[in-house]
């Protein structure tokens, strides 16, 4: 990674798994620690997710300038936009990097896609894949490049497990078996349960425990 490149976190996962809500939970915690984040949100059919995050994180809570939440349409090919042809996302990232050199990290949300989606290393330095228990406890066992290869597997909506007949212990067991030593976290993005642990992974594994740029400059 060059010294100018701001660390980039890619977040992928199926439609409705909680990608946007994960970002909405993680950014305020990072912000409370002094880390400044930019967000690029790929959406398949609209910019609704980006608009929601801009309203929630920028307009209402003032955690970032509004233009630090960018929405991209991806022509119905969310996997292409983060893997085979990430050029549009890279342009958006570099534009953000040149405008806000003091950012500590940039979060890139993929459009909702299947379990084989992965991020190009040219686009993201760290890859979070998020699934939710309502898809069934078979999800980790079914593998797929996203679940197997991501740096951090996040299993969301754990509160729904008893209601959809999903056994969390099976999901944990299979996640360990499929991913070896690579980490996973059980979360409930609605209540914030488990989000602190996700944030700790980011501070340790992406930011290498470095001080926020704004603090380091003082």
């Amino acid at each position, binding site marked *: 990674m060059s010294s100018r490149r701001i660390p980039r976190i890619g977040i992928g996962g199926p439609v409705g798994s909680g990608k946007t809500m994960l970002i909405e939970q993680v950014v305020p915690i990072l912000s409370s620690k002094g880390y400044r984040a930019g967000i690029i949100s790929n959406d398949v*059919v609209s910019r609704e997710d980006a608009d929601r995050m801009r309203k929630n994180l920028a307009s209402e809570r003032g955690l970032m300038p509004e233009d630090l939440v960018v929405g991209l349409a991806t022509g119905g090919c969310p996997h292409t936009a983060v893997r085979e*042809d990430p050029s549009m996302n890279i342009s958006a990232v570099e534009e953000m990097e040149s405008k806000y050199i003091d950012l500590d990290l940039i979060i890139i949300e993929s459009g909702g896609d299947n379990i084989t989606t992965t991020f190009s290393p040219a686009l993201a330095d760290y890859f979070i894949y998020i699934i939710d228990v309502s898809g069934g406890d078979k999800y980790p066992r079914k593998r797929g490049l996203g679940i197997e290869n991501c740096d951090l597997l996040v299993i969301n909506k754990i509160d729904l497990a008893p209601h959809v007949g999903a056994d969390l212990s099976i999901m944990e067991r299979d996640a360990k078996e499929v991913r070896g030593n690579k980490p996973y976290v059980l979360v409930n993005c609605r209540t914030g349960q488990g989000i602190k642990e996700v944030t700790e992974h980011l501070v340790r594994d992406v930011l290498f425990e470095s001080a926020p740029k704004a603090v380091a400059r003082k």
Partner: protein
Amino acid sequence: MSIDKINIDELSIMQLSDSFFPTGMYTMSNGLEALFYSDKKVNGANGLRDLIRVYVEHQIGPADCAALGNSYGYAEDLDFEKLLEADETLFSMKLVREIREAAARSGNQLLRCVGSFITHHEILNKYQEATKARLASGVYPVALAVVSSTLRIPKRKAGLIMLYAFTVSLVGAALRLGMVQHLEGQRIIHELKPSMLNAVNDNIDRPLTSMWQFVPDIDIIQMAHERMGSKMFIT
């Protein structure tokens, strides 16, 4: 006597024409998405073919293809000032913001990609620097001309690359919108081959001062796309 020779240039043509080549064209519908959601329906596969022919004959041919032809000559002559003039002229002719910005974005991505494996070439390097310094937009037809000259792709074949890539991009968008099915898409591309060929032959040597385009219905539908709240494509 048949001539059956192959060379590297032809592989470069295939590489640049391939929809796998990362210029972001899969994100563009050139207004087709807005048309799809409007009350003006395209009449099946033949209707789509005829519509693409209008784009080719009245917009991409006389404007983009002419700009490409001129820019190719300037790149060959190392006439950088004229190359910048072609860039500015074509960019300013693109009336719709989304289309203008998408063309510049694709061109810049093309330059960046080819620049990653052709690292030392005078006109390519200078044009890339100019786009970074925002002295040039990097609009796709001019970028393709520079890149084609760099890769020793003949001028007319560079024109075909552009027409083919544009046609495939539109058919691909139509396919994803459900306007046509996969076999119909290939038939459309096949049936448009004469139009693509004519667009190149009729326009590649057109002087910069004679470039034109006139497709008001398409301009309007492309403007309508800019105002759509929910959309899959960037144009």
